């Protein structure tokens, strides 16, 4: 047993990846107290990345549940699904839920994100978002009957949906309000280079085009765009990003600033309270900057570290070289590091061929690497960035792989 590990009651709010990893880590670290895992969805924890990929492409793809109920019984976790947390009192150490109050000694908040919608279009038949398993079930069913799909937003989710719909042979138009897609994730140059995959695979991507309105017509939906054009569709998927699910914490005293403000150990500033996953805005010492990530890897790692710190009283810092991947049209897009850069250059391959590596420079340092169709390179750059490699080190590695 780890030193300092104790009993008491650990409450984990949010039963997705970070929450799952939190309860597993607490037990692995020898925590013998009570564990309560609260999730607002009715489902056992499941893996989200497949929902916009394999699950949509193929009606026979299984639901990506992580673990059977016996896993939680084995861990002696009191699983409370279909239970939404509604408020937190970090002084009295109480979480209010739809099913009553839960007292905690240690708390991990891992409530994830909520998909953004377009104002006025919520609940319109045929207009979908994609965040949850229920969303994915509904969308998959709708895709079975669709011929023409309009995707609003050319971010990663929208682009993966577009790719899945193309694989089904559907006609796909993507409307992106910004002039360049993925600018925040990849910078302007590389956002454009990656988005060229759409045209190469028969998806009609329109940039600088927002949605004015969507109307039910006689032959389906009609999407009116801000540039005066319009598009007929059998279904519309809105992929315009997600917001950290922290509304329930308003008034709790926790500092909220596009996420829960945490220190380098994921502590949210009140005794025993930690955050993990999409909701955590924490200080990443690898880059000396505050960040909030919506990536699979950071949710998994933060869940484990937050729980360990909560139950053992350890002060482990979470530091990471951010990593995410996305699969479009059988092409894997991987990014490691941070995209804030003063210089970006293609070092391997050619964006015109849809296969390349680009390096991101910040000062004298290698800050990021984008690998499109070069999976063998990705983790080598991740390790270089983690070791604070210089820009020249990055270029030298690229040379060695030519």
């Amino acid at each position, binding site marked *: 047993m780890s030193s300092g590990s104790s009993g008491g009651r650990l409450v984990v709010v949010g039963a997705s990846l970070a929450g799952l990893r939190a309860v597993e880590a607490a037990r692995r670290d020898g925590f013998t107290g009570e564990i309560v895992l609260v999730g607002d969805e009715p489902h056992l924890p499941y893996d989200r*990345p497949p929902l916009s990929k394999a699950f949509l492409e193929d009606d026979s793809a299984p639901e990506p549940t*992580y673990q059977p109920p016996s896993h939680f019984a084995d861990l002696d976790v009191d699983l409370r699904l279909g239970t939404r947390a509604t408020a937190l009192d970090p002084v009295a150490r109480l979480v209010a839920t739809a099913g009553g109050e839960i007292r905690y000694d240690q708390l991990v908040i891992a409530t994830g994100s909520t998909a953004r919608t377009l104002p006025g279009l919520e609940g319109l038949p045929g207009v979908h978002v994609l965040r949850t398993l229920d969303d994915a079930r509904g969308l998959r069913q709708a895709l079975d009957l669709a011929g023409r799909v309009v995707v609003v937003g050319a971010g990663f989710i929208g682009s993966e949906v577009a790719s899945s719909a193309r694989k089904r042979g559907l006609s796909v138009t993507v409307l992106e309000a910004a002039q360049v897609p993925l600018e925040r994730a990849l910078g302007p140059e590389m956002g454009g280079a990656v988005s060229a995959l759409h045209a190469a695979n028969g998806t009609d991507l329109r940039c600088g085009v927002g949605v004015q309105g969507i109307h039910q017509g006689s032959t389906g939906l009609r999407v009116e765009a801000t540039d005066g054009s319009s598009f007929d569709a059998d279904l519309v998927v809105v992929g315009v990003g997600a917001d950290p699910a922290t509304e329930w914490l308003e008034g709790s005293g926790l500092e909220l600033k596009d996420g829960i403000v945490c220190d380098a150990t994921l502590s949210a500033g009140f005794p025993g309270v930690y955050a993990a996953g999409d909701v955590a805005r924490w200080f990443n010492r690898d880059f000396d900057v505050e960040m909030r990530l919506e990536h699979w890897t950071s949710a*998994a790692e933060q869940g484990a570290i937050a729980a360990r710190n909560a139950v053992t009283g350890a002060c482990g810092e979470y530091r990471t070289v951010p990593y995410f991947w996305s699969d479009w049209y059988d092409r894997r897009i991987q990014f490691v590091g941070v995209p804030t850069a003063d210089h970006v250059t293609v070092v391997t391959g050619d964006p015109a061929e849809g296969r390349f590596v680009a390096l991101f420079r910040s000062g004298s340092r290698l800050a990021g690497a984008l690998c499109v169709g070069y*999976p063998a390179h990705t*983790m*080598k750059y991740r*390790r270089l960035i983690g070791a604070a490699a210089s820009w020249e080190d990055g270029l030298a590695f690229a040379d060695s792989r030519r």
Partner: protein
Amino acid sequence: MKLSEDQLMKIELDRTKCTGIGMCESVAPDFFEIDDDGELVVLRDAVDGAEVADVEAAVLACPTAALRLRP
């Protein structure tokens, strides 16, 4: 401490689950490498006592639960 043969652990890879995301290579590059086709190559599958922690971390980091470490 010298480890005897029977303390070796063995890496098992389930290729039906692996999708080549590469977290294992990031965590334990002496054991795992993604090749040019995106396939995982297990560089060596025998793990001695001193290396178990690294490989366990790689197993835990796998987003598709494709790796196991067995006695």
